[in-house]
């Protein structure tokens, strides 16, 4: 029987962004992984929340772009909800589309966003098999321990959820497309760190999911 896949947020976002013959390599890999489904798909509630946060943030980026098209003096930096990375995407969008009439651009962005959201929701409704680890049951001790290695708090909650679940289940795959924090070496290091930490919330010989980082898969 095929192992189940515990999916990271970025894999779902990449899958949703897929456009035949027009997508970059990692998006095609994530699309293929989900389309050629083998075994159950699992996500945790931290991922579910993150997906909705991504939807909200995309709306804010588009609103900011429209504000700048309307008034070129508008500054993206004033919006505290956007990271430097978000702002760089907003700038690219603005520079590419600033000549388009505001009303038309608004419709283009709204239309792109609605398809993006529908695809996420279709995935959740029709391809996802199980949602696990409600937010209030995430082990904070474990999250904090992971945070000693990985800075992004949302990522730590997702990993903690996966590790918590793994200690109750047969080995499953943790599927991600994170090239900075979860490359194979970093994952090994993280596992050792947690084993050595001897957390009261993990068993003596903790089990870890098998990492599938699609960034490093052929």
């Amino acid at each position, binding site marked *: 029987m095929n192992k189940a896949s515990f999916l990271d*947020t*970025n894999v779902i*976002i*990449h899958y949703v*962004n897929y*456009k035949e013959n*027009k*997508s*970059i390599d990692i*998006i095609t890999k994530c699309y293929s992984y989900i389309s050629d489904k083998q075994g159950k798909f699992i996500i945790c509630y931290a991922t579910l929340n*993150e997906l909705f*946060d*991504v*939807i*909200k*943030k*995309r*709306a*804010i980026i588009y*609103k900011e772009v*429209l*504000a700048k098209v*309307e008034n070129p003096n508008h500054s993206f930096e004033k*919006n*505290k*909800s956007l*990271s*430097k*990375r*978000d702002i760089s*995407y907003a700038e*690219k*969008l603005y520079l*590419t*589309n600033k000549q388009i009439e*505001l*009303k038309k651009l*608004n*419709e*283009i*962005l*709204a*239309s*792109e*966003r*609605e*398809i*993006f*959201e*529908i*695809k996420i*929701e*279709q995935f959740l*409704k*029709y391809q996802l098999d199980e949602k696990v680890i409600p937010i209030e049951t995430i082990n904070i001790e474990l999250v904090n321990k992971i945070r000693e290695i990985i800075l*992004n708090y*949302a*990522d730590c909650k997702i990993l903690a959820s996966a590790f918590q679940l793994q200690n109750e289940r047969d080995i499953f795959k943790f599927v991600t*497309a*994170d090239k900075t924090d979860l490359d194979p070496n970093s994952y090994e290091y993280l596992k050792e760190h947690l084993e050595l930490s001897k957390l009261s919330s993990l068993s003596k010989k903790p089990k870890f999911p098998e990492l599938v980082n699609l960034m490093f898969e052929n």
Partner: protein
Amino acid sequence: MVTRKTAEQIKEEILFHLNNEPISIEQLRKKLDSNWSTTNNYLEELSREGKVKEIISADKAKIYQRIFGDTYFDIPISLEERKKFRTLFSLIIKKYKEMNKIPNKTQLAKTAVKVIHSPESGLTELPTVWYLYGLIPLMIADTSQDYQEEFVFEHKQKIINIIEVFIIENQDKKTKQIQKEQHKEYNDRLYQLSDDFLELIGKNSWDNNKIFEVLNEFFIVCPLNEEFKEVFNFTERFISTIRKLSHFDKLENNKTKILLTFDALWKFIATYKFYETISLKRKFSDKNLLNLYLGNAISVRKSCAEESLSDLYSIYLSKLDNKELELAPETEKVREIMQGWTGGD
């Protein structure tokens, strides 16, 4: 010889101290030179009499607010402002009566706003706020009150002239039309778009393109405030849910739910607009103080809007099928730029 104050005198004193802002029992106790328990007893009595209300209670940190009942959210105004408002309402009602008309609440409020916002009236300092149906005086315009002239206006005749012109210009208009024209006159695009949206969905046959056009502009105009993120988040969610629902069901089939959701959302947005406009006035610039008056109302309306949005979203999810939806060709460029973006840092 020191004469002891009577209970009524102490209660009057408490009301006087609460005239301008809410105060904690501890602050009141010091002003009255009394102890906590006695002050608390008087406040509880005043509360039973409906003259004050407790707005925050945490152990001994109780905060009380005076209830006048004649301003929105019981936001305090000065005695002079109160007299000016009453006098203005009195002049307006008198003028309507002279012209053989009886104003309704909206006509009274909108005429008052017209006067206050006319520089020649000399009343521009009287507070007005944006709320559910547009710009209104902070003091509730109540046609059942017997308002009297309690203040001598310097420009009384000019004020009467403004009132007369307003009555003549609006005499054949329905309340809704007066509201809509006011939204245009004072140029608040959000209110105008709300009017347009309600007009479009009030029709028997819906034109989705026109509805989306209005909602798209609503998306641009909707305030994005760090302190009140939900105003934009909820608006965005409402718009996207309607747009998405249109792929799987006729929007008209969900008319009641869409109307109810927009109503709950609008009440939340309008309460925020109230907060926003009043906080711009120097007297109300202390946001902590303003939160004491409006915090609860904003929070209740936020919950109602959230619940209503959640219901609408459930309807959409129940209709969502697994059909393949393709990106429109003109959106592909946007998708290409955004393809590496996953929302992470």
